[in-house]
């Protein structure tokens, strides 16, 4: 255990903390430096399969950071490399300023919540949660006390004496979280931990995970393919595709100011139109002429909720005449597919009392230039 004196020492230090608040405050203070830096990280599985092609990332301590991308983009591989479960082919990994690239998983103070939960079937819930401390040589009474504290914190006290096969998916998820958090890792890694749960429970656990992260002030690195989930939870998101980072930024930045087509598509429904001509007063697209000052780019992005629909035809800059092709009612919003100029446009309108348009209606699409972004392929 000589390789991890910090775990032992911190274990003794926090062990006496009676209240959760004190525990949270203490961990927050000790976690100021647990940043994660990835420098030119590459991973090659065989000569032909390159999972990561040089990833650079700086994740400040205490951030809820999400790796977002479609399946096969390398996000899980990246997470496993931070955990030490996968060796880096090239590049460096630093955690809390310490180079850990060649340190095996069991000597890194980093814990993972797995997608399949990976709870030990031969152990009770109590022994599952205490497993990490036991491996570190923490004394039994101390383990017991901390298991009880952690269970209280995660609200699973009543499950401690159950067997693993007597638990529901949501309960298993909480136990997997408790099993990782009890070790007070520098960084908590979460590999699509909510993807096996039903929608309602999933939303609940998203908020709860976020609260836990805020209270502990711990660095969380979360992997998901669900852009909604990523936007709800993250301080910052890295969008990955094909072993590359496409863009890093806050949810708002990624949604409203995507750097490229991939990010624009992945972050939500996008109306994207190739720019045919660009001059000082505006751009020409299939929609027609749009007046305004835009940065140069190959495509124009119009998010469906940034346009306004008015009945009938009206004249003016950026007023486009269109007809309704399809209407999808979604409760809080109505989504319209419109025929506009030579192409199609999707618009989303808030439903707050006003009448909806019918299929075949002629409408005017008012495009606000604030909501427009030009981007490159």
């Amino acid at each position, binding site marked *: 255990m000589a390789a*991890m004196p910090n*775990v032992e020492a911190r274990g003794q230090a926090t062990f006496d903390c009676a209240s959760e608040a004190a525990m949270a405050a203490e961990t927050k203070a000790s976690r100021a430096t647990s940043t994660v830096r990835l420098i030119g990280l590459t991973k090659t599985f065989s000569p032909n399969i390159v999972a990561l092609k040089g990833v650079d990332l700086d994740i400040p301590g205490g951030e809820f950071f999400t790796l977002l991308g479609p399946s096969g983009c390398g996000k899980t591989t990246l997470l*496993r490399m931070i*955990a*030490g*479960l996968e060796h880096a082919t090239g590049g460096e990994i630093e955690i809390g300023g310490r180079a850990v690239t060649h340190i*095996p*998983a*069991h*000597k890194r103070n*980093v*814990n*993972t919540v*797995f*997608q*399949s939960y*990976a*709870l*030990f*079937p*031969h152990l*009770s819930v*109590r022994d599952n949660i205490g*497993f*990490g401390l*036991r*491996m*570190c040589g923490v004394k039994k009474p101390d383990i017991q006390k901390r298991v009880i504290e952690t269970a209280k914190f995660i609200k699973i006290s009543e499950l*401690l*004496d159950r*067997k693993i096969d007597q638990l529901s998916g949501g309960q298993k998820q909480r136990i997997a979280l408790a*099993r990782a958090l009890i*070790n007070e890792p520098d960084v908590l890694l979460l590999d699509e931990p909510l993807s096996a749960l039903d929608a309602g429970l999933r939303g609940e656990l998203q908020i709860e995970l976020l609260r836990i992260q805020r209270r502990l002030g711990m660095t969380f690195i979360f992997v998901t393919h669900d852009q909604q989930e990523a936007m709800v939870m993250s301080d910052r998101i890295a969008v990955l595709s094909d072993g590359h980072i496409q863009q890093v930024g806050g949810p708002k930045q990624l949604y409203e100011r995507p750097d490229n087509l991939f990010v624009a598509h992945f972050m939500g429904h996008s109306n994207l139109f190739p720019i045919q001509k660009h001059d000082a007063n505006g751009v020409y697209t299939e929609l027609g002429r749009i007046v305004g000052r835009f940065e140069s780019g190959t495509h124009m992005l119009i998010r469906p909720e940034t346009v306004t629909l008015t009945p009938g035809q009206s004249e003016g800059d950026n007023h486009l005449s269109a007809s309704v092709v399809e209407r999808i009612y979604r409760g809080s919003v109505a989504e319209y597919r419109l025929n506009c100029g030579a192409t199609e446009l999707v618009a989303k309108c808030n439903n707050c009392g006003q009448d909806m348009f019918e299929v075949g209606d002629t409408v005017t699409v008012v495009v606000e230039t604030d909501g427009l972004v030009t981007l490159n392929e």
Partner: protein
Amino acid sequence: MKNTGFYLSLRIFWYLVVIFLYLPLFVVVLFSFNEANTAARFTHFSLKWYGQLFSDDTVLGAFKNSLILAITSSAISTVMGTMLGYGMYTHRRRRLGWLVWLIYLPIVMPDIVYGISEMSFFTSIYNMLGILRPGLGTMIIAHVSFQIPFVALLVYSRLVGLDAKLFDACHDLYANGIQRARFFILPILQPAIIAGFFLAFTLSIDDFVISFFTSGPESTTLPIYIWSAIKKGITPEVNAIATVLIGAVLAVAMITMAFQYVRSASTTSRA
């Protein structure tokens, strides 16, 4: 209603299976308690054949040899088979088809072929080097080699059925190699290892063919003794030996089941 005949014939078939399976066992047990020296009719209840059995040094010697052989070979093959099963699991991604074939071949190989080849192998080694004289030692080697694949198969299938992420979780939760073996792999394999031991034990205790070809003059086991005894006709003494064997096998099965039951009950209560 047209299926009645079909179901009736199934039922009759089932009764026939039960009769041919268990009636002979019942007859053997019954006549081991027969006073008369004949299987023609049951005269009086008597334990005299058992008395004769347990005072016969040849029988006792054979019984002792059988136990030594079964316990030693099962213990060795359980350890080696477990290691083999684990190795097959950890290297399952590599192309090891031919190796797996080598391991499984003894399971399908006819015992007689295996027994004869082991015999000539041991004899030539003994003639050349003066070691491996046919006896308990060679029998243990032969038994271990045919038991290993069964144990390895049990261990391997247990491991394949596990979530591979459990190994990652162990590593992630600070367990080094020794701790992983002690706190994860061995406890999780325990049912497979125990089942493997008892399977190896029963394979060994009733093996005749391989034992016969690899044994020496002083290493007669119970099956070999029975075989030589019935050449003089089936005596009540042979029935008594068979009854003892039936009792022993039932006892082993019951111990295994009791052990599993206690284990599954203790996981819930252990805090």
